[in-house]
């Protein structure tokens, strides 16, 4: 089971856990509706579509309302710290949660108490918290963008807003050096999927794959395109793919969805997400060498 944890930008959205249904425009969890928009909602939507295509059960989500004050985020940390061993997910995704280092440490300790430790994926602010708290090596996958790989390479920084200027100025050609520095300082997860004009898959400090086609520069401008990659990775890993293959497929599928959607800088993330079923149906079997149930129908 995949458990995706994050906040929803509604202050009155209570702490909610349950299996998610995706209608194409909205997510439904315990009869509560969440719009498919940038952030954790986009991540869950992509995970739902991927799981459905693979014939897997939909992900579970743990959500709380938070517009940045941190109240909902603290509820998520507390719930996970207490209940993670009983929930026993095989994949745990931590996403838009206000970074609080001490509370992230408690969640990490709770994950260690699971009978079988979940595959740990962190993106966005949860990745900031994991790195700043010195917990990065406890995670299996981080999905940074170019500014965030610079952040991981800056061992002193607690947030990308305070990274060194020369690191922020590094372009995508420096990914190898930045990733090596992040691993050297123990600020990287086991695998990094560095999202950019060229996507880099990095394992234990070494670039093992790059993905640059199709080249859709407009994807960078569209809010949520990083979230969808992480959602797909989680669903692929939960279905049994290894981390490396899951990351490669997710990066490829995201680009192809951008192409299918004829992405422009004004495209909304739900338009990209809507293309995933076609992308999977037409490409996944050839890309992965493994054809899933939907291909056979």
């Amino acid at each position: 089971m995949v458990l995706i944890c994050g906040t929803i930008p509604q202050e009155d959205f209570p702490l909610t856990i349950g299996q998610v249904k995706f209608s194409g425009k909205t997510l439904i969890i315990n009869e509560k509706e969440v719009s498919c928009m940038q952030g954790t909602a986009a991540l869950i939507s992509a995970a739902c579509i991927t799981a459905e295509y693979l014939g897997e059960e939909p992900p579970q989500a743990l959500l709380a309302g938070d517009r940045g004050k941190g109240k909902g985020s603290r509820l998520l940390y507390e719930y996970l710290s207490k209940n993670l061993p009983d929930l026993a997910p095989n994949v745990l995704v931590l996403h838009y949660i206000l970074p609080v280092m001490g509370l992230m440490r408690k969640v990490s300790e709770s994950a260690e108490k699971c009978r079988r430790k979940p595959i740990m994926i962190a993106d966005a602010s949860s990745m900031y918290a994991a790195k700043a708290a010195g917990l990065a090596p406890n995670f299996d996958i981080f999905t940074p963008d170019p500014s965030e790989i610079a952040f991981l390479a800056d061992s002193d920084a607690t947030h990308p807003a305070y990274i060194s200027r020369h690191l922020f100025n590094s372009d995508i050609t420096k990914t190898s050096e930045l990733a090596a520095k992040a691993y050297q300082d123990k600020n990287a997860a086991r695998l990094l999927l560095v999202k950019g004009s060229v996507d880099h898959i990095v394992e234990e400090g070494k670039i093992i794959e790059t993905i640059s086609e199709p080249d859709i520069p407009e994807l960078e401008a569209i809010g949520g395109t990083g979230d969808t990659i992480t959602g797909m990775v989680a669903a692929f890993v939960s279905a049994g793919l290894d981390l490396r293959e899951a990351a490669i497929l997710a990066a490829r599928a995201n680009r192809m969805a951008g192409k299918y959607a004829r992405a422009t800088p004004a495209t909304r993330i739900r338009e990209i997400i809507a293309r995933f079923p076609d992308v999977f149906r037409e490409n996944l079997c050839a890309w992965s060498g493994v054809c899933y149930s939907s291909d056979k129908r």
Partner: protein
Amino acid sequence: MAFGINKKDGFEGGGLILFRNVEDAIKAERTLKSADYMVKLVAPPPELRKGCDLALEVNLVEQTGIERLFRGKDVQYVEIIPRKGRGELLEIVKVKDFGEAVMVKAGNMKLTFDKTSGVILNISGGGCPDIPYLHAELIDKKLTEAVRPKEKGFTLCSLMLDRAFCESLELWSKMRL
């Protein structure tokens, strides 16, 4: 280990607020606690002291909300800085031209606007909980009519978005000349 000094009591904020005198520090602590911020009185490292032997450790990522709260409550302070590393916020911005639209990047945040209308087309990057809210608030609004991200946001992501917003506004103003 980063920020390990406070591991015992479970609070590791990563940010320090510096003051000129003890009265300001006490008032700031009271103000932050009443607004539910996690905060701890600490002694600032000697090299960072600005006249006061007390500082407040706060969660650095909450800098934007804290600064707005202090403005509203007339709390005096010198500055908010990271405990480690660079003490200055990233000032640099990058611009990418898509033809009909321009994307401005500041730190981990990106704002894209239409060159003809000045309408905000998209916001991407980042990952703090205030960003999806700001995304919904700003999209489809003209740069000249939208609220500044740092007036609505609480985190460093919103502060970076504010940088991108201000640069976009400046670029848009020049385009209209």
